[in-house]
């Protein structure tokens, strides 16, 4: 079956020849009102340019990748989609990171596992339209009907076997009429999508090429590091920078807002001078400690009324009439993102504009915030994206960009601000601390007749996800959540909220299964059957897909059939993906030793199998590391020294990383048709694999040793 994709009236294609000849194709689905090209239904948005590729006469296919690359492998998977429909020779594809350009690209950010779902269709059209025009150009050259020709591996092939390369056709193709409709390929004909394609930047990465923000260098550029307050809720009272300024290599010491920036010619000289700063701080709002938060959690969990997120049936009555009730609480601390590359950004604020270079997950937001801060028009600001040495949500923030821009505007010089690891750990934007109280009511047969969750988060936004499973499968259900506002900065942290909520929900469901005397896997399957047969309220997950991953992992792991081994199970739906995992754990001298994890992920269409496996296994390692070793500062007033020994990154070192094998099965969705019409179910498994990982190892204790 083929898909016909129609360009609507708002769509148009911009064509131009490159300076050296060759075809440049850009797509703009929506035009601005100012251009007078749209119908009345068009959103009043600026011109949006969705995809961009060029073909040179010497046969180089350049595909611009607009979204920030932080290890999710988008610089390989985006071009794979374009190349698939283009029928390009992958070996001739060159990938170029696009600058921030809101006129050309839409949603040029990395976050929320949304890049592929958002761009899937337009990337395919970008390739398919170019292919169509290349074929038409060949038909004209040979004076034959284009229907007799086929495109394959970067060539258009004549029925008699002759062929012309895309490079040979590119210039002429640019003069062809832009098709109103393009034919997209059937999935059975995919040659690139779904295969394992190696990272396009491997060679540069393994040879140490300057790819990252910290590697950026500009002649005449200064370096800087910034001393920030030692606790949240404090501000600068006085600064004595005389000793620091007198150190060799130091150009200036600048105080702005709550920052003291040491500017110099090299990082080591700055590090030494910084130690000589004498800064006095004073209180500026609440200075909170972890014990304050513990008290607060208790108060809010016991509060008579908390905001209701979801209510089905009559929970009070269910609990009153219950044969058995179970109550458990789960708490997680603040946690630093700690990407391997510390925060950094280059800024050069000139009279005629601003140049920004560095690693950002949200370049457009960074530019907007810089424009506001400096009172400069956004179109006077350029932002060049480097590769990101990890992000995990930390680089969604703009603070590290703004500091660099403000400092450059003060010292009137190009400057790169680099954070130390301690800066990153102490002045980060943490995963919000949360505490959950779960309650379940069982009837005499062990059926869950009531379910109650109250979540309290500190700067968490909504701390619960009220439509998560088992919502829809329980007659009487109440989900409540409240956020406490604190001076501690928090932010999205890989799989926001669900990164720990999954742990709590799945650990609790195991406790309930135990209390009900049921097998944990069977217990979930029964709940799903219940949701399927007589759904209660809205159901926001796909019951069949969830069941399939559960049954697959149970079968592949030999659930309940392995002797001398404890098994733990978890299943989760988040970020549009379904993941079920089984951990095999051996008890050695009373200590659980993780032997193996089985992970089954239904993440929709897999673009790059190698990348998908990387994301699933990486997410699991991340989940295990944080579940087993994470620590939070005992007192926010004086956070720990912020070294790697007490926090997330170091823990992976201790993680039994070689002691288990991951058996990852990545399923493709059973129903391609529904997928095509619902591109939102084409996710990326980066975030979804992590939440269940931490709990499947904990849940081993809920499973009797066979």
């Amino acid at each position, binding site marked *: 079956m083929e898909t016909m994709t129609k360009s609507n009236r708002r769509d148009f294609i911009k064509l131009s020849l490159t300076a050296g000849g060759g075809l440049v194709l850009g797509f703009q689905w929506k035009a601005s009102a100012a251009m007078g090209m749209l119908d009345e239904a068009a959103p009043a948005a600026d011109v949006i340019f969705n995809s961009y590729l060029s073909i040179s006469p010497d046969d180089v296919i350049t595909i611009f990748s607009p979204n920030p690359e932080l290890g999710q492998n988008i610089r390989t998977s985006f071009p794979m989609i374009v190349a698939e429909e283009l029928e390009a020779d992958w070996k001739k594809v060159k990938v170029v990171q696009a600058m921030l350009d809101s006129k050309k690209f839409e949603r040029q950010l990395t976050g929320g596992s949304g890049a592929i779902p958002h761009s899937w269709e337009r990337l395919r059209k970008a390739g398919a339209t170019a292919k169509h025009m290349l074929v038409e150009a060949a038909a004209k050259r040979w004076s034959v009907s284009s229907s007799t020709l086929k495109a394959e591996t970067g060539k258009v092939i004549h029925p008699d076997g002759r062929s012309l390369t895309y490079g040979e056709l590119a210039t002429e193709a640019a003069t062809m009429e832009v098709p109103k409709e393009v034919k997209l390929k059937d999935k059975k004909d995919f040659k690139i999508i779904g295969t394992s394609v190696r990272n396009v930047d491997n060679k540069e990465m393994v*040879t140490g090429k300057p790819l990252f923000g910290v590697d950026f260098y500009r002649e005449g550029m200064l370096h800087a590091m910034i001393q920030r307050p030692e606790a949240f809720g404090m501000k600068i009272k006085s600064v004595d920078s005389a000793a620091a300024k007198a150190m060799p290599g130091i150009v200036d010491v600048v105080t702005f807002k709550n920052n003291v920036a040491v500017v110099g010619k090299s990082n080591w000289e700055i590090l030494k001078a910084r130690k000589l700063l004498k800064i006095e701080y004073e209180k500026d709002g609440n200075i909170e400690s972890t014990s304050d938060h513990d008290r607060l959690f208790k108060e809010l969990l016991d509060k008579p009324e908390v905001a209701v997120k979801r209510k089905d049936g009559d929970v009070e009555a269910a609990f009153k009439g219950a044969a058995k009730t179970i109550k458990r609480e789960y708490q997680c601390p603040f946690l630093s993102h700690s990407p391997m590359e510390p925060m950094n950004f280059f800024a050069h604020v000139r009279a005629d504009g601003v140049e920004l270079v560095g690693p950002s997950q949200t370049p457009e937001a960074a530019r907007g915030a810089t424009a506001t801060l400096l009172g400069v028009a956004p179109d006077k600001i350029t932002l060049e994206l480097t590769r990101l040495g990890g992000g995990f949500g930390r680089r969604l923030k703009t603070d590290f960009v703004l500091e660099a821009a403000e400092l450059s505007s003060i010292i009137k010089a190009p400057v790169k601000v680099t954070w130390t690891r301690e800066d990153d750990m102490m002045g980060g934007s943490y995963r919000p601390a949360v505490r959950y109280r779960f309650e379940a009511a069982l009837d005499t047969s062990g059926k869950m007749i009531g379910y109650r969750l109250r979540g309290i988060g500190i700067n968490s936004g909504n701390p619960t996800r009220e439509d998560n499973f088992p919502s829809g499968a329980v007659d009487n259900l109440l989900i409540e959540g409240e956020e406490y506002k604190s001076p501690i900065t928090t932010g999205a942290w890989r799989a926001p909220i669900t990164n720990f909520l999954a742990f709590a929900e799945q650990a609790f469901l195991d406790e309930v299964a135990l209390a009900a005397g049921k097998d944990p896997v069977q217990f979930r399957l029964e709940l799903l059957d219940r949701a399927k047969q007589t759904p209660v309220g809205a159901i926001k997950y796909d019951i069949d897909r969830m069941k399939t991953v559960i049954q697959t992992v149970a079968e592949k792991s030999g659930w309940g059939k392995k002797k001398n081994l404890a098994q733990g199970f978890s299943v989760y739906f988040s970020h549009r993906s379904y993941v079920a995992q089984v951990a095999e754990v051996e008890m050695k001298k009373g200590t659980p030793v993780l032997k193996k994890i089985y992970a089954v992920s239904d993440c929709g269409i897999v673009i790059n199998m190698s990348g998908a496996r990387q994301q699933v296994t990486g997410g699991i390692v991340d989940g295990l590391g944080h579940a087993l070793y994470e620590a939070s500062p005992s007192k926010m007033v004086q956070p720990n020294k912020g070294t790697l020994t007490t926090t997330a990154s170091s823990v992976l*070192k201790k993680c039994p990383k070689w002691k288990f094998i991951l058996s990852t099965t990545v399923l493709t969705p059973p129903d391609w048709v529904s997928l095509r019409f619902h591109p939102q179910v084409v996710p990326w498994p980066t975030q979804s694999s992590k939440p269940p990982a931490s709990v499947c190892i904990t849940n081993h204790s809920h499973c009797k040793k066979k």
Partner: protein
Amino acid sequence: MASYSINVNGEKRTVDVASDTPLLWVLRDSLGLVGTKYGCGIAQCGACTVHLNGNAVRSCSLPVSALGNANIVTIEGLSKEGDHPVQQAWQEVDVPQCGYCQAGQIMSASALLAKNPKPNDEQIETAMNGNICRCGTYHRVKEAIVLASSKI
């Protein structure tokens, strides 16, 4: 400030820096060899790993004054064409995610294989234990080392 003459990737390089300047910052700020990464500054993450007379060392904690005539090799000097067996294996196994720690991982792995071309699992784990990867590429790191070992 003092002048130091050091051997980096087979070349004599002269730098004018304070005696306590760690090799990491000499490489990055003075010589522009930025493949060696700053990750923690306290020898805990392994991102700054280089070879010192063939041994894997943390350049962030090695002052320039202690280098003497030692031979230093960085990721840029591991091979001329980027085709050291470890670099090849890394590409073949498709190890990197974000890639930031990988130069350090490769330097640790290549130092291990130079001394012990056929390491067992435990020896690999011990040699690589000081290199942190926040993306969690550990399984492929190991797979690539085993592959490189089979080709040496």
